[in-house]
């Protein structure tokens, strides 16, 4: 049996929503020259959904406009690039190094940045929660003190 559209041989890729018009142009230009990619576009606001889909292995790869866009996703933490299997999901950039070794290094750097940013965010959130609780307690105690003195 033959597939007249050729979709059977095409790889299903998620395209991370462009942040600017120029990123959209880069992504469209890349897809035009890569017939083997079956692209599904995700809006920028759907980063979390995209991250979940990648983790579940629903896509063969993910396409970013460039290194800035990929790094933005890695650092923001909504797409956990460090938790996505390196051998199962192919991370690509519409505008990036053409050689394989360059891309391998960038993929490693992206995963490392995502991991570091996640750890940092977790620690920061913990510290901010404690600080928020301490400051709120001090504020409430001070207000209560003022009210008590006023009543007395």
């Amino acid at each position: 049996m033959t597939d007249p559209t050729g979709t059977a041989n095409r790889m299903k890729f998620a395209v991370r929503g462009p942040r600017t018009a120029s990123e959209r142009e880069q992504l469209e230009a890349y897809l035009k020259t890569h017939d083997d990619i079956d692209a599904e576009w995700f809006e920028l606001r759907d980063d979390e959904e995209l991250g979940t889909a990648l983790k579940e292995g629903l896509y063969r790869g993910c396409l970013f406009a460039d290194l800035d866009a990929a790094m933005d996703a890695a650092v923001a933490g909504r797409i956990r690039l460090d938790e996505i299997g390196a051998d199962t999901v192919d991370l690509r950039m519409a505008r990036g190094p053409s050689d394989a070794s360059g891309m391998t290094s960038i993929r490693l750097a992206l995963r490392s940045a995502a991991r570091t940013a996640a750890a940092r965010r977790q620690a920061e959130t913990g510290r901010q929660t404690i600080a928020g609780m301490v400051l709120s307690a001090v504020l409430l105690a001070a207000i209560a003190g003022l009210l008590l003195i006023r009543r007395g």
Partner: protein
Amino acid sequence: MIALSLLIAIPCVMWLAQTAMLRRHHLPIRWRLSNRDAPRQVRTVGRIATQAGLVSVIVLYPLSIGAPILGHYAHLYPRDASVMDAVVGALMAIVILVGLFLVWLACGRLEIDVHHERRRWVRRLVLLIPSAAFGAIVEESVFRGVLQFDLVRSGVSPVPSIAIAGAVFAAAHYVRSVKRKWTIFGHLALGVALSAAFAATHNLWLATGIHAGGILVILGARPFIRYRGPAWLTGESIFPFAGVPGVFGLAMLTMIVIMRFWRP
């Protein structure tokens, strides 16, 4: 203007001490009061000269007007119901500063980061209340208990006395060479708030309470926070009240002091 003359003598004493120490270390004389890159001994003697100058003014002023030293300060710190003004002042300062910190924390303008070693911040926290009380009592005794008291005694009416004492208080923080000068607006607003507290209550309890409450929050938070700025918003270093919201908070505090505490 005995008080002003005594206050002007302090930087002169500080400069003489600095010059003597620099000469002792075979270093060139500095025309400005500056500890930058100076040996530790020069810095230590500079600090001692400053404290000694302040204490001398506190002691010498009552004597120069023929009043007993303890009597003068007992009059300014009366043992009556107004003692509670110190508690109210401290609580008001805490509410304003902690409120600002909470808003900045929510906006991501404060980074929580323990940047002092444990032994150092524990020592700071242990000494926090005595440090805040001592700093506030000394500064209030000098700028309100001596300078503003002397202005009022010389017949200067309340509003100019607030302006002059507030301005001298602010300027005094810039006698030494400092990293940044723009924070003077914050010091000016703080000086006006504290001077208004003295003019309103005719004693030092409220001003000392506000001052101590401010020091308590700023020094207590210092080992654990970094300001992410911008500087116009969060102020700088130990001057979170120097940003626009801080100055606004101090203006609000001045209004509260005048409306709630003014006694003719």
